[in-house]
């Protein structure tokens, strides 16, 4: 780990100013991933701008029925928040399916969104990785890649995004709120992370100097049935082999709203738009779910050793959809 300067920001403006004043700076949240990667030499910031003490630690209900989550709210607090548990259960469940109690106590909402891939080739500086070092190649493509992407990957990068939380945010139509040198904006959570394409070094749509200030959970999905399911190698404390977050609203015997997002299948939480489109207006039957998931997963291009992820994702999604559908209809 290289020596670095440390600046503790007291306000968003102080944070973005400090970031601008220190070339090579990174924002420090809970540090559970950034410090990990600094120890590995994968991240070597010249300065850390500590944003954990910004006044962004509140979860507030807004008049329009949406829920504003501050960027520094810890994962465990967000998962335990009564409004989150009651109105956005998929988010609470996703958070609780991730990491460990200790890590959830430290990790922040903003930091969770910015955690980087668990690809072992990315984590090992002695190996080629286009994400870590553009142009160096991809060790995983022909290497050990059981855990890698089946959707949306490129010949530059087959890494997956490891977040559980981000999968639920994508399904719930959340928005990521950003403040940077050029002001504030918000981005749909489902579009916040990128596909690798020719630039796997860019995980997200965040612009240089931009700070995540919060996440907005919309009124539109508040209180709708939602759930998260994760399959993993051990019963707890393991990254997903595949996961799914589902929001399903059924009225008058037909699906009125569906939000489906997959985790661990792609470089970003994979919002299953094709499946959702196929479901809208359809009766929520097993056959309809199967048809919709097949439409979505037809785009999958598994690698040599991860073909299992496609049926795994399909089956856990089908299971969650079936559980969320009103009993009589499936």
């Amino acid at each position: 780990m290289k020596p670095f300067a440390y600046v503790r920001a007291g306000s968003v403006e102080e944070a973005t100013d400090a970031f601008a004043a220190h070339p090579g700076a990174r924002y420090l949240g809970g540090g559970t991933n950034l410090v990990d990667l600094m120890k590995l030499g994968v991240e070597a910031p010249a300065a850390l701008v500590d944003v954990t003490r910004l006044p962004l630690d509140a979860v507030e209900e807004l008049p329009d029925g949406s829920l504003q989550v501050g960027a520094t709210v810890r994962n465990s607090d967000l998962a335990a928040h009564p409004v989150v548990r009651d109105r956005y259960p998929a988010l609470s469940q996703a958070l609780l399916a991730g990491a460990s109690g200790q890590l959830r106590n430290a990790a922040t909402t903003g930091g969770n969104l910015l955690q980087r891939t668990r690809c072992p080739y990315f984590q090992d500086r002695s190996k080629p990785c286009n994400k870590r070092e553009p142009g160096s190649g991809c060790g995983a493509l022909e290497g050990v890649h059981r855990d890698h992407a089946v959707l949306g990957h490129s010949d530059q990068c087959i890494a997956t995004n490891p977040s559980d939380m981000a999968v639920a945010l994508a399904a719930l139509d959340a928005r990521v709120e950003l403040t940077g040198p050029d002001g504030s904006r918000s981005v749909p959570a489902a579009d916040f992370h990128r596909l690798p394409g020719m630039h796997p070094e860019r995980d997200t749509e965040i612009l240089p100097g931009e700070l995540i200030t919060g996440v907005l959970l919309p009124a539109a999905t508040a209180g709708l049935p939602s759930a998260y399911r994760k399959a993993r190698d051990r019963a707890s404390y393991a990254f997903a082999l595949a996961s799914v977050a589902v929001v399903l609203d059924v009225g008058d015997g037909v699906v009125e709203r569906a939000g489906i997002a997959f985790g661990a299948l792609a470089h970003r939480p994979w919002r299953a738009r094709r499946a959702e489109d196929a479901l809208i207006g359809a009766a929520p039957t097993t056959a309809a779910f199967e048809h919709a998931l097949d439409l979505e997963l037809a785009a999958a291009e598994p690698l040599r050793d991860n073909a299992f992820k496609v049926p795994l994702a399909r089956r856990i999604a089908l299971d969650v959809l079936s559980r969320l559908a009103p009993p009589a209809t499936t």
Partner: protein
Amino acid sequence: MTATETVLGAPAERREGREKVTGTARYAAEYDSADRAHAWPVPATVARGRVIAVDAAAALALPGVLAVLTHENAPRLGDPDDPVLAVLQNPRVPHRGWFVALVVAETLEAARAGAGAVRVTYETEGADVTLTASHPEAYVPDSANGGFPAVTEKGDPDGAFASSAARLDVGYTVPPLHNHPMEPHAGTARWEGDRLTVYSSSQGTSAVRAELARLFGLPEDRITVRSEHVGGGFGSKGTPRPEVVLAAMAARETGRPVTLALPRRYLPAVVGHRAPTLHRLRLGADADGRLTSLTHEVTTYTSRVKEFVEQAAVPARVMYAAPTMRTLHRVAALDVPTPSWMRAPGECPGMYALESAMDELAVEVGVDPVELRIRNEPETEPESGKPFSSRSLVECLRDGARRFGWERRDPRPRSGEEGPLLIGTGVASATYPVLVGPGVASARALPGGDFLVRVNATDIGTGARTVLAQIAADALGAPLDAVRVEIADSDIGFGSVAGGSSGTASWGSAVHEACARLSGMLAGRSEPLPEEGLVAEADTSGKADAESPYARHAFGAHFAEVAVDTVSGEVRVTRLLGVFAAGRILNARTARSQFIGGMTMGLGMALTEDSTMDPAFGDFTQSDLASYHVPAHADVVAPEAYWVEEADDHLNPMGSKGIGEIGIVGTAAAVGNAVHHATGIRFRELPLTPDRVLTGLLEHGHPAGMLGV
């Protein structure tokens, strides 16, 4: 009630327990001093080749960096017994992860930064790291680990197999596995003139001292090695490891005490691992399931540094009454890290394969798998013909079956269904040999009525300290709290390693002898003890380790229940019950913990622990604890361990067999057999992770309760 009845076998509390729960127990990296420096190794980043150049300038320019040792400037060492200890002696890179430099610095941060700044240039050579059953360079070695002959043959197994009513010819695969004790390997070394003191995370200080003496050209009496507390080892600390050599080297070069605690990710390459094993089992049997032929052939790898052959076909020589038998090991030397001991080397992977095959045979001939094993119970050790000193496998199977409720089992595969879950149960046998080593001990009677026992044992979490006090109190006829025990110090004298489940038998024999002798000296003595007390010593060389006319093994039986999620392929072990026969159990409390600990590691082998040798880069892809999945709390539901007491006069004065390893032997087979019972599918490669299990479920059609695919 005699002292024996009250002390030996009692569930005495761990003597160091208070230190461990208050955080004051000190481990090897925790011997601080004002001038202590820290070291950080630099691992090779090529799978095979040589170091052409090391540019240490950038590292040395960093604040706090004291020295960078490489093969060019490191002290020349003598020849070790174990070539993995010849570190920084030449430019050769025998495998990725081999240490090519060491940075010594004032702080951990500076040492880490320094290691990151060392630039190493290599000349790379083509590497072969991929083991296959038909590897062209595989050969039959002279012997396998433990000194066992690589090949044994009895009768005509091929002919008998060909004419058997039931025939099974199957292969099993066990991946590389990693010990990963919670304490990463560490050493703190200090030189005072030409005296070397080392705190080492070792399972045996005598072996460390002997190697350091060879390497540094010192008489052993100028070296002290201590291992007061060791954070687990499971074999990986059973032999001296590079960190202790590097720490001593760095301390000598810098004139400072130096601690080297290995980063977790570096362990898989340098502390040994369980080599992958490819098994071929051929079982011939009559229509009733009585074996007519047993062939177990194992192919494994070793490194180019030294030959280590996982003796996985050896347990087949012990288990069943097959009139014809062949056991054979093949090994290929590849450009891989050097494998070594991991909990029950040989028995653990070997019994996974054999006991899985026995289950397949049971299904094939339609005999209950418990009964099948009982039918094949031998009268004498199959390979040697020696009588068993005691063998209670049948009792373990019967007792376990009773406790588990085996008679309620529906033998039909895929007969248990609960919603999306398939429920199944399985059984497997366990065996582990009785090993024992020589050593010295002393017992001193002190004027105040207390006793001091000194023996160079190591307590890596087994409870050795505690059980040795029990042995001493028993032999002395003294209350347990009158006995103090000092261990884990090479100055005490020779002590064998805490390995091979031999510790208690080995150290205990010496303690027992010293205490019995002291008892004799005290008996009838009327005058008061001198101020320094009265000492008796023992040296069991040639006695404790004498060849026995008996075949001596512990046995056991595992029963497992699994739930297989047909949606995800996730398998959970819902019940795990082991019954063991290991002579006399000397401490019911610590013994139960050790049995369950072994079973838990076996559960990991069955379900979660997977390591992959990267064919292109030559290292283990799963090098950290986020990717190498040792079982977590949530995986371990309610394991139960029981034992059958054995009275065996052919073991040692305590009548005990080792218990540290048998818990892991057979567990994975019991789980795998339960998965077969649950699903009707025989998975022959470990671990049973969702990728494999789901793929199997899909290939075998739609099991009951499954959502469609």
